[in-house]
């Protein structure tokens, strides 16, 4: 039997302190109040004063409430019984299924030895030209969707999840709107993917701090499946809520904020989650796609900014399209030399031209006369936007590359493309 403490010394934000001995850093406790029970974990020790962060928040907790230490860190059950199940942010069933207590594993475990990783080589095809052609998604990649608020980022996540050839999908919802939760559930059910999906969903109406556990739980489970040889796709939505919950704790703990109120370790905290994406030597893989809504639509805000420094690129969702600027897949070069020999050149060439198109468009909007060259660029840009960028386009990579050449040849001369002559010779569409 573990000792129960009934004298809470201080309560501030979602952090409480009690006096106790023999407690380990990171250990879990159960706090029982009139409003029910909540998990809490030890975040600071000073002599016998123990600070705990209470996942359900400290609202309504009284100084005489009960704190029971469990003598172990946070754990989650791992087995095939998880498949098709739906849990909340702390791992309790949200469907009506049984509580799982077999084979408990620690969450937030140590990182993979870099010497045991391999260079990823498999492209995940999505049928979206802005991804497949310009920023190929690669198995084991960690990649956020930077989204202006109100954009269909969850739809995009669900679409990629269904199209991707993976063994397992884990959805980690952090502050997920209930409607979006239902949307994921229905879409995956309709797509016949529910039986290979696990949900850990913290919704917008749940206590904020509880969302903090979701990435760790989702990734710990993903890691076990990956070690067992499975290709796992983890969807996290929305990591901005995760970072905000961290900020809340940091402020309560009176940490000196580094940037717009966010703690100085935001980078390390996010990195320790995203770095779980991995391609294991002789085992499976974890690919992480994470929605990150940009507060104030500003990419330089600390959350997207720190995220961008951690992840292997990002898809920038704006006006219902994946923007060519700002979007990046850093792993694309691992796969786009094996697809077709024009892939790389076309990818860079078309974006360079699109950048020139933007300049011409700017000139046009300022009322300047359009030169012949400007006019060509304007036609190019319009075709590019409607035939390539539109999210409704759903075609295989090879077809998208052909389409690229078609667009170029419709409005430009070969030496205006900036593409090398040998490629032009090979792929320039012959006059019909």
């Amino acid at each position, binding site marked *: 039997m573990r000792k129960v403490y009934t004298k809470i010394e201080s309560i501030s934000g979602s952090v409480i302190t009690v006096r106790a001995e023999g407690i380990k850093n990171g250990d879990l406790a159960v706090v029982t109040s009139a409003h029910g029970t909540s998990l809490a974990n030890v975040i600071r020790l000073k002599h016998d004063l123990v600070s705990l962060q209470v996942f359900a928040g400290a609202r309504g907790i009284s100084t005489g409430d009960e704190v029971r230490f469990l003598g172990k860190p946070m754990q989650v059950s791992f087995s095939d019984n998880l498949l098709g199940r739906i849990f909340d942010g702390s791992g309790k069933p949200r469907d009506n299924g049984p509580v799982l207590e077999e084979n408990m594993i620690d969450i937030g475990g*140590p*990182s993979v030895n*870099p010497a045991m990783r391999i260079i990823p080589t498999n492209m995940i095809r999505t049928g979206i030209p802005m991804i497949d052609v310009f920023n190929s998604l690669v198995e084991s990649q960690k990649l956020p969707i930077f989204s202006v608020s109100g954009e269909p980022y969850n739809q995009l996540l669900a679409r990629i999840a269904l199209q991707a050839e993976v063994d397992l999908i884990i959805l980690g919802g952090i502050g997920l709107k209930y409607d979006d939760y239902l949307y994921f559930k229905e879409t995956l059910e309709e797509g016949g993917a529910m039986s290979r999906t696990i949900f850990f969903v913290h919704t917008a109406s749940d206590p904020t701090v509880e969302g903090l556990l979701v990435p760790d739980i989702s990734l710990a489970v993903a890691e076990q499946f990956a070690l067992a040889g499975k290709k796992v796709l983890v969807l996290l939505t929305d990591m901005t809520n995760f970072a905000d919950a961290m900020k809340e704790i940091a402020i309560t703990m009176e940490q*000196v904020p580094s940037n717009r109120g966010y703690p*100085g370790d935001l980078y390390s905290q996010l990195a320790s989650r995203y770095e779980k994406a991995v391609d294991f030597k002789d085992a499976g893989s974890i690919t992480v796609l994470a929605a990150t809504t940009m507060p104030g639509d500003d990419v330089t805000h600390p959350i997207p900014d720190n995220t961008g420094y951690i992840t292997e690129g990002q898809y920038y969702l704006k006006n219902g399209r994946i923007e060519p600027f700002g979007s990046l897949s850093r792993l694309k070069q691992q796969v786009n030399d094996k697809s077709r020999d024009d892939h790389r050149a076309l990818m860079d060439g078309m974006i360079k031209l699109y950048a020139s198109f933007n300049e011409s468009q700017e000139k046009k909007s300022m009322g300047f006369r359009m030169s012949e060259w400007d006019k060509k660029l304007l036609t190019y840009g319009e075709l590019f936007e409607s035939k390539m960028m539109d999210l409704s386009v759903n075609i295989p990579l090879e077809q998208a590359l052909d389409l690229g050449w078609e667009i170029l040849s419709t409005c430009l001369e070969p030496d205006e493309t900036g593409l090398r*002559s040998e490629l032009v010779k090979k792929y320039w569409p012959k006059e019909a």
Partner: protein
Amino acid sequence: MDKSTGKVIGITGNMVTVKFDGNIAMNEVGFILVGDQKLKSEVIRINGDTAEMQVFEMTQGVSVGDTVAFSKEMLSVTLGPGLLGQVYDGLQNPLPELAEQCGFFLQRGVYLNALDGEKKWDFTPTVKKGDTLRLADSLGTVPEGIFEHQIMVPFTMPEDEYQVISIAKKGSYTIHDEIAVVKNSKGREYKLTMIFEWPVKRPVKLYAERLKPVDPMVTKVRLIDTLLPVARGGTYCIPGPFGAGKTVLQQITSRHAEVDIVIIAACGERAGEVVETLIEFPELTDPKTGKSLMERTIIICNTSSMPVAAREASVYTAVSLAEYYRQMGLHVLLLADSTSRWAQAMREMSGRLEEIPGEEAFPAYLESVIASFYERAGLVQLHNGKLGSVTIGGTVSPAGGNFEEPVTQATLKVVGAFHGLSRERSDARKYPAIHPLESWSKYEGVIDKKKVTYVTDILFRGEEVNQMMKVVGEEGTSLEDYVIYLKSDFVDYAYLQQNSFDPVDGAVSIERQQYVFDQLFRVTVGEFTLDDKDEARQYFNQLRQLFLDWNGVSWDSDSFKDIEKSIQDKIEEKWNSSDPHAKSFSGK
């Protein structure tokens, strides 16, 4: 003196507070005993009988009352033969060996020997009994890959001079075998092996003189070698927003830089990027030596999800290894990616120590710490007359991509070259995204400076015209100005841009750079007969196309000569005269 012990009395994140008995030193290493694990930590503040320690491991499971065993030693690296080709974490643990022992995951509290104690090295003595030696003088050599590794008098010996009492015969020895006995002026004897420990935070200064870096360090990136050169023994930084190409630039430099040894310090960045290097390097041959690139490389890797405190250790470990090889008369390049992560680790620790925060919560000593790190670079003349150098190139990851932040600013004050990456250029896929006009270098390059200045001037004026055109439109711009703009755009596409992933264009020898630059220079000084803007644009498009094709073919191929001929014809086609101002140095 006895080693001290202590007890943990507080834990916040990766910092523990310890109450200790006896004496301990600042920066002394101690181990927290948690169950059967020992967690390496370093003393970072002492106050009365309590000390604050940063823990180089996760602190999960540590509790108040845990014992701390102090070591009486500073944080150190092991120096000796066998460092080359290794992949270490920030504390010099060999990662492949760790993987053999612990499997997929990094298990905390496991510390392995940095060097193989069983391997035999062929030792050839270079001194004899009775010789007088200074610190760092060579006792003999062992072959390490392509180098003659000098076995030196340990840098840490207390006095300046020693006399050789005995020296091992030519033969095969392990790093632990005794290879010499020396005595100091008072007759005290010291047994020496091939290895010794060096405290990482102390610079090695055992040379005759520090010299001004003058010789260029060729990187095979045109934009750098031609416009923004780096000197051997110099320092440079690459600040840039995320995804702008810092790491790719360092990766390409680590492959092609003309130095003897490259040390890569992956500090708080992605593990995947290190994996690329450590898997690809053993397969790649160094054109200079014909051996695998790994034989001249050491990787120190403390990636973003590895314990934060070890990030600081990793850059110091790296620079200590660099200084060690410099002491053998070798040229070493240290690439650190990213120095901002190290600065952030300092910030985290400073916050936990509740120090008064400076700008953006970085500690007030940030600037001096950065300065003294870069100060460890340098070209030196050793006591034996040989030259050796450490060149340091660090990336900086400024918050929001804004260079007006403490780490970038502190770095810019001390480095010799600044390669600033621009978001606009990387968005437009103009790689390398180094901003050619905002960046600078204080070093001399290989290509005739006057010509380079002329071309840079075209770039400046072209940019001015471009800005002006945004206000007055193309129609309000004179043909003359428009041609300047076209020339600058041409230089950008045909010369500055260089796709690192292109098998031919990714790395360009200095001979080829000089050769191509001469042709390019002709275009920039040319005054051409062009009637209107459309004709001008078409003409420069054609020139650009020829140069792009030229860049894509190999240096010694027939196509290279064919395209060169077409370029010359194309230049002649509209040639009128050359800019009279450029005549004095254009050689035409």
